């Protein structure tokens, strides 16, 4: 972002430009936050769906793990907390910026003219999109957790602090993966829904956002732990629930964040000239 600011023509100081850039991102976030309400209260439908989804999952676990039993390090209470927190932060564990759709429908054309880096303007929009679901689902879920028979508290105060760090890294890796998919769409001229299908499968199985990967059969969890997808969801959730050692999990997340950001940035810079727009 800074390199783009410095290279941007203008006479203002870098500090002023950065301030303006920050304001532009905040404005984008604010507009996106209120966007879902533009069509009335229909956004509540997806909210209801998330409640149903988590209620079903919370009801399923007691039929699989009896009270008092521990399966692959997960007792019933831990797995219920895991599932609840996974739903509370589901948008952050499954990062999707609107860039792929915009690339396909042509809306990205005008975005190239915005005085903001492409990746961060879409990231700002995505963060705005989180506001309404956070308010209508995530916060109520955390407050209602005791009524649902779930302890929503982290393993300790230290684990909560490390969870926040891990969550930031998870979102960073998620944005990098999203941009990597965008590069693929550009380079091999794929419709975004083609990659969406593969990503949905990966998300459901490899990330641990849906079911703890340690509970998968055939020791798949031992393999998936090392993939970047696990760093987008499983790592922060394991830190929150105290089912994983925070130090190696955070180190792996930081490594993936650096590697993916550098690689995707280079790939995008060499691909952006190939962007072709079909929409209108």
């Amino acid at each position: 972002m800074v390199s783009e600011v410095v290279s941007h023509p203008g006479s203002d100081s870098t500090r002023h430009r950065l301030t303006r850039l920050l304001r532009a991102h905040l404005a984008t976030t604010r507009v996106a936050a209120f966007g879902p309400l533009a069509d009335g209260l229909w956004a509540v439908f997806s909210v209801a769906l998330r409640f149903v989804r988590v209620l079903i999952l919370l009801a399923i676990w007691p039929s699989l793990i009896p009270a008092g039993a521990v399966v692959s390090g997960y007792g019933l209470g831990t797995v219920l907390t895991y599932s609840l927190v996974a739903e509370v932060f589901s948008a952050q564990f499954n990062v999707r910026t609107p860039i792929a759709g915009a690339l396909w429908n042509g809306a990205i054309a005008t975005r190239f003219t915005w005085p903001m880096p492409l990746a961060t303007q879409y990231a700002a929009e995505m963060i705005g999109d989180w506001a309404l679901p956070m308010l209508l689902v995530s916060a109520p879920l955390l407050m209602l957790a005791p009524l649902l028979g779930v302890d929503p508290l982290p393993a300790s105060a230290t684990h909560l602090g490390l969870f926040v760090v891990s969550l930031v890294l998870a979102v960073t890796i998620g944005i990098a993966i999203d941009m990597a998919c965008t590069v693929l769409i550009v380079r091999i001229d794929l419709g975004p829904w083609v990659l969406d299908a593969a990503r949905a499968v990966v998300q459901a199985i490899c990330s641990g956002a849906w079911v703890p990967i340690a509970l998968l059969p055939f020791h798949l969890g031992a393999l998936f732990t090392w993939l970047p997808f696990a760093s987008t969801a499983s790592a922060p959730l394991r830190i929150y629930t105290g089912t994983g050692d925070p130090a190696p999990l955070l180190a792996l997340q930081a490594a993936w964040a650096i590697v993916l950001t550098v690689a995707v940035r280079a790939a995008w810079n060499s691909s952006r000239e190939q962007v072709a727009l079909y929409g209108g």
Partner: protein
Amino acid sequence: MAAETMRLLGAGARLNAIRILRTREQAIAHTATDFIWHSGEMLAPILVALRFGHIGPWPLAAVVFMLAYGAVVSSLLDAAGDSPWHLSQRIGRGQLDHYLVQPQPLWRIMLTEGFTPFDFWPVLTLGLVLMAWSVAQLHVTVSPGWLGLLGINLLASMAVQTAFLYSWGCLAFWAPRGAEEVSSAASGLIGKVSFPLDPVPRALRVVLISAVPSGLLSWLPSRALLHVAGAGPIDAWITPLAAIVLGALALFLFRLGLREYRRTGSRRYTDHGHRRR
């Protein structure tokens, strides 16, 4: 009447085949995508069932049957066309007028629009193969009566989903702008259930087979057909009965909405053809 409907369905199939043959790479990519999407949706619950050997009273093979049943229903619905998913858009954007100027009755246009029988066969095949596998694993006695009941329930599940989407989509007759996207929102709400609902609290189960009938798209019919513990003797007829009730409700709402539309017309365009925002 039937001949004309068949002619239009045939035209849809022909166009579908032409599109596939002319854009082979894209057609393969789209078909593969659909296959990955559906099979991936099934894979995660299957892995959980594999790890634990069961989900509630459902053994692994029964879970596979339920998921395969859901895949068959959704692939048949996808092949039948997409008008239920876009009804509110059609009404809200004034595109219902495009239907009304065609020299066909409205029901026939909606029945035949978007018929794409060749796009979804991999998912349908996967669903049918997995259903056959699980039936063999569970030693279900497959009689003509059982197959008939299976067919009736499959049709009923499709009718339930269609009627649910139509019922909500009709809201756009009265709120063309606010409810323009209500059909897609409703389709998100009635999404397939990935797990058997037996362990779910009774109140939520009742909601999931009535107000938001996701449970009728795979769980309840599968439980009845496989005689899983907890299934009642009349369970196999609940989905067909619900299809009739929901279908009647959707028809009533659609006719009521059309009456409103006849009075108001499309409110989204000015006399000069510009969109009113």
